[in-house]
């Protein structure tokens, strides 16, 4: 799936990229609190639920993630969890975004490194 990369069209911001990666790590059972905790533990930054849900809203509107309702629990005051998952378009967009970052950093993935080693040994 070809994904055009422009922040204003269908690219994703750094925060959205991190949120999508957290969703991907917890898929298919990630929801607000677990995604926030995942982000906090791996980025070391403070994340408020509001900013995360605002990002969920943007990403869902663009078809990059989808949500489904879970079971209500007592500790949540009887409220249901809303689980988030990446859509195929979301996965493709995330891959494209990460590849663009890698390209900018001069790292073209494991395949390139392996091919360089193979070429050097030959």
């Amino acid at each position, binding site marked *: 799936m070809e994904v055009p990369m422009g922040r204003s069209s269908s690219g994703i911001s750094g925060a959205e990229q991190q949120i999508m990666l957290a969703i991907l790590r917890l898929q298919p059972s990630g*929801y*607000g*609190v677990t995604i*926030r905790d995942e982000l906090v533990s791996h980025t070391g930054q*403070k994340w*408020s*639920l*509001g*900013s995360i*849900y*605002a*990002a*969920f*809203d*943007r990403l869902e509107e663009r078809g990059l993630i989808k*949500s489904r*309702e879970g079971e*209500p*629990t*007592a*500790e*949540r*005051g009887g*409220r*249901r*969890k*809303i689980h988030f998952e990446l859509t195929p378009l979301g996965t493709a967009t995330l891959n494209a975004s990460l590849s663009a970052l890698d390209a900018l950093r001069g790292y073209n993935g494991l395949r390139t490194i392996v091919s360089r080693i193979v070429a050097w040994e030959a």
Partner: protein
Amino acid sequence: MNMKSLAKHSIAKVSVTYSDKSSMDLLVRYRSIETIRADIDEAINIHLKPGSGKKIAGWVYDAPVEHGFLPHVHVAMSGAHIAVNAPKAAPPVENTTAPAWAELVLRAVTKKEHREGIVGDLHSDFARYSGEKGRAYAYTMCLVDVCQGVMPLLSRTAVRLAVIKLGGSLLKWWGS
């Protein structure tokens, strides 16, 4: 269940019936038999039914662990009735519930599909902080989280309203 002993500091077993018809035996130690109403623990009150005559208080040593079913009846104690209102093992429900204003604010600025999720997360956070560091800390964290979270959510709501307004204006212009 009839209770034979009403002496101060004596320990007795009490059978409590829950709203789901299950029952559990509790050990009670009487501290006083003259108090009108006494806390037997921070989370457990014993009330006497009106007109029962005897006033009893004590401690429950073996509290029920289920907190989904609040007991509603109770036991006869030498003619007096007691009711256990809340079990010892669970914190009172109101202590683990996020403040109503926080829920109201988040509900107002979140889109309908995500409301249940964000409010549930707020309660879940509040319960966790409340259990770990106390209600005051949980309240502070809740305040911080809502203040930090309102602006991004509000801006999303504003964008949505602006789009609706613009769409309406365009339709009106197209129709005229």
